[in-house]
């Protein structure tokens, strides 16, 4: 772990070096060459050491040979001298003495060779000198004819010296040999150590070179990978993140370039996204604006038609019918354009359900028979007796079939239009065929494109919006199926829609119905506000404002989090920023509004943009521009977090009731008033239970204590939360009496009645109607 971190540090440090890539590579190369040189030098040094030791050994060997010679000479000299002394003739004696002298020279010469064994050699020399002296004395004695004394001297003095010399020379040889063995051992040890050093050094160098290579490569490969990953994310449409590489080389420049490109693409993407949203919103608005006058055109023309019929003004009927038909046609066009724009904006929702095919076919038949008949066509339905169900979007399937059958009827004269159903194992085919004008290859090619009927003149001749087939194709694909066509010019066309029986695409599953996902039980009944903003300071500011108003807050820092939190917590109201990375506010709004479980949650758009119209047309409840006006935000939230019902104020003092009414009105609660306990029970008897009863204690008639006692006897009312609002100084006993039956006791004349009331009511459970809606 630490190693990895260190490794990363080093790589980053290398990446951070302000050199160009080739400089870094050159430096690494030079470093490795330098290492090779060092390894070579170390090896050379070891070789030199080995050579020196070899020379040393050779020298030792020579020395040993010399010592052996001395040893040999000593033995033979002593023997010869002894023999000469025994021989007892002058010639032998002279020769022995001469040789003895020669041996003395040899010994002296040896002293120069054998410095190490100087001491031993000194003793040999000493013994030799004394031996020579003894021998000379023995020779004198012999020559003087005193042989017996000479023998005596030889035995007693010369022999021990000779023995000592022999021993010493032996020692000399032994020591030299021991030295040599030690030398060989030392040499071997030294060689081993040197070899190990060289090997370790070499391994170290290789490791260092590899590490260096790796570090350099990763400092180059890392940013490439990073940039590659980023580019993939960009390709997926995520423009938010930046490439962060420590490099200050060409890769650093590349990363900076990628970041700049990404930013520009992101900005462009947002613009496009916004433009697309604007387009959708515009279309939605336009269609609404167009429908309103059309409504009047169609309605009035129908009305005039009826009136003309009633009054026998038959000559007006055909023209009035034309006005109405033109209006209907225009309406269809608008509907189709709206459908197509919703499909293209990805906002077309699917409502999947079990569809009874038999019933669907009957519905289609009733609509198509008159259509087909108007062109003198026969309409046949061919389907097996046993038709099961299809799990699909009923409306869209029906619309698709009607589109195809409508076309077939339109483009066929005095022929046959047919709908055939074929059930496969896991799919159902709907085959719509006609014997009409058919299409050429070229016309087939652009058949499913929007606004492209087979021929521009077709539109004039046959009418239609040219959008039906494009919409039908989209619908089929949304439902997990497909549409195919076969046609021959002049001989008719056959369209086949094939849908899966069961498996509608998982992502398009119908949302859970509201009732199936109850609000999670929470002890804290204060309303929950979700604040969605990607910018932490503004999010915190919004959250702080909301908290100060006494609500609970959850925060979401992006669109996706917002959607998942909304599903999880079902907030009572959402404030939504628009400009956010990835999923922006419009997209979140659209997603919220298309989710059956969430669409009732009021959404307040809080943004720097000035697109109030878009916000409202996309389903936002309110629109507030940044910088946020606290009071306005608080007011908007208060207005939209519905108290969900009524607070019954029971107080004999009209001033008090007025004061409470003013405060609670602002919080969106409806106020009912009663002047005493009896009055309150009358109200309760005639109305739905209120969300809360605000009760004064001191009243004429039935007072607060009596009211509390009495309401305890009514199971239908005794669970209504009661808050005491009183000017009475309460004793301990009274407080205890009240504690079990009331939620809170508020003293009149409290400094901040508004605040206390607000805190009390926002803690109330939402009423049933609010629950169902929220």
């Amino acid at each position, binding site marked *: 772990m630490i190693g990895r971190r260190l490794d990363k540090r080093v790589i980053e440090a290398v990446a951070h070096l302000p050199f160009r890539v080739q400089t870094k590579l050159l430096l690494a190369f030079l470093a490795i060459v330098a290492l090779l040189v060092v390894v070579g030098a170390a090896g050379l040094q070891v070789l030199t050491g080995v050579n020196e030791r070899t020379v040393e050994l050779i020298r030792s060997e020579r020395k040993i040979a010399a010592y052996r010679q001395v040893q040999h000479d000593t033995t033979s000299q002593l023997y010869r001298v002894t023999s000469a002394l025994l021989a007892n003739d002058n010639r032998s004696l002279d020769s022995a003495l001469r040789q003895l002298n020669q041996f003395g020279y040899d010994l002296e010469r040896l002293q120069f060779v054998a410095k190490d064994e100087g001491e031993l050699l000194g003793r040999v020399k000493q013994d030799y000198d004394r031996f020579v002296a003894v021998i000379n004395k023995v020779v004198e004695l012999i020559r003087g004819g005193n042989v017996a004394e000479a023998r005596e001297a030889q035995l007693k003095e010369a022999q021990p010296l000779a023995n000592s010399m022999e021993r010493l020379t032996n020692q000399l040889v032994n020591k030299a040999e021991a030295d040599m063995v030690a030398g060989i051992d030392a040499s071997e040890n030294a060689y081993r150590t040197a070899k190990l050093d060289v090997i370790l050094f070499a391994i170290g160098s290789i490791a260092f070179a590899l590490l260096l290579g790796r570090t350099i490569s990763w400092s180059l490969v890392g940013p490439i990978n990073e940039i590659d990953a980023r580019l993939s994310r960009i390709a997926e449409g995520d423009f938010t993140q930046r490439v962060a590489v420590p490099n200050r080389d060409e890769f650093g420049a590349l990363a900076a370039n990628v970041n700049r490109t990404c930013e520009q693409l992101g900005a462009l993407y947002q613009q496009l996204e916004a433009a697309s949203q604007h387009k959708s919103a515009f279309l*939605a608005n336009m*269609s*609404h604006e167009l*429908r*309103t*006058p*059309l*409504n*009047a055109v*169609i*309605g*009035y023309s*129908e*009305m005039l038609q*009826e*009136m003309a019929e009633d009054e026998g003004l038959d000559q007006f009927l055909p023209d009035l019918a034309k006005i109405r038909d033109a*209006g209907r046609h225009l*309406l269809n066009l608008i*509907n189709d354009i*709206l459908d197509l724009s919703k499909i293209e904006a990805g906002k077309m*929702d699917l*409502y999947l359900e079990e569809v009874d095919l038999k019933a669907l076919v009957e519905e289609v038949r009733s609509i198509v028979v008159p259509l087909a008949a108007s062109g003198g066509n026969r309409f046949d339905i061919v389907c097996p007796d046993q038709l099961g169900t299809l799990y699909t979007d009923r409306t869209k399937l029906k619309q698709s079939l009607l589109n195809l059958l409508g076309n077939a009827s339109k483009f066929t004269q005095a022929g046959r239009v047919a709908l055939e159903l074929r059930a496969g194992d896991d799919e159902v085919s709907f085959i719509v065929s006609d014997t009409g004008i058919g299409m050429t290859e070229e016309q087939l090619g652009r058949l499913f494109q929007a606004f492209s009927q087979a021929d521009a003149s077709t539109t004039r001749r046959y009418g239609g919006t040219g959008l039906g087939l494009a919409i039908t194709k989209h619908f089929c694909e949304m439902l997990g199926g497909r549409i195919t066509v076969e046609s021959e010019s002049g001989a008719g066309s056959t369209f086949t829609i094939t849908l899966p029986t069961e498996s509608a695409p998982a992502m398009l599953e119908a949302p859970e119905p509201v009732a199936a996902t109850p609000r999670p039980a929470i002890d804290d009944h204060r309303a929950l506000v979700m604040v969605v903003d990607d910018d932490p300071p503004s999010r915190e500011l919004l959250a702080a404002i909301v908290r100060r108003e006494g609500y609970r807050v959850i925060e979401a820092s992006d669109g996706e989090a917002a959607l998942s939190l909304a599903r999880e917590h079902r907030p009572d109201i959402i404030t939504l920023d628009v400009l956010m990375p990835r999923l922006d506010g419009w997209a979140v709004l659209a997603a919220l*509004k*298309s989710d*059956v479980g969430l*669409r*009732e949650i009021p959404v307040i758009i809080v943004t720097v943009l000035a697109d109030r119209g878009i916000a409202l047309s996309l389903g936002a409840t309110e629109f507030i521009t940044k910088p946020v006006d606290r009071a306005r935000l608080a007011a908007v939230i208060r207005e939209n977090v519905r108290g969900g*019902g*009524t607070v019954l104020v029971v107080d004999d003092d009209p001033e008090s009731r007025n004061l409470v009414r003013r405060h609670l009105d602002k919080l969106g609660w*409806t106020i009912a008033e009663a002047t005493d306990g009896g009055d309150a029970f009358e109200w309760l008897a*005639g*109305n*739905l239970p209120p969300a809360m009863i605000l009760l004064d204690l001191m009243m004429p008639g039935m007072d607060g204590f009596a009211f509390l006692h009495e309401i305890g006897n009514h199971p239908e009312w005794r669970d209504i939360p009661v808050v005491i609002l009183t000017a009475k100084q309460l004793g301990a006993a009274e407080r205890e009496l009240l504690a079990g039956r009331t939620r809170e006791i508020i003293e009149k004349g409290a400094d901040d009645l508004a605040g206390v009331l607000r805190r009390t009511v926002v803690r109330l459970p939402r009423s049933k*109607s609010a629950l*169902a*809606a929220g």
Partner: protein
Amino acid sequence: MAKILIVEDNEMNRDMLSRRLARRGYAVVTAVDGEQGLVAAETERPDLILMDMSLPVMDGWEATRRLKAESATQTIPVIGLTAHAMTGDRDKAMAAGCDDYDTKPVELPRLLEKIEALLGGSGTSG
């Protein structure tokens, strides 16, 4: 004779719808926004209310919620009308308490069917 309250802000639509319904023998009263609608519902006690959803002052959803919350008016059937063809509009209208729902421009025969279905019982179905 059943009395129908039309709450609709667009003058032409209001005029047209009221005349067409009147021709079919209904007594028609009108209101131009949600608040007036509430007042008219209280004072006129209609047998059925046709409620446009996009209304000024107080929108149709809110007006419907309030109608359904008041004991005096909660039994009057309400048909919500919107010019939006959004799929969610129906659910939204029903959630607000509408008894039925239709889109504008109205197809009169279809709307009449719905009106008759709601009035068919005692006039207080729903």
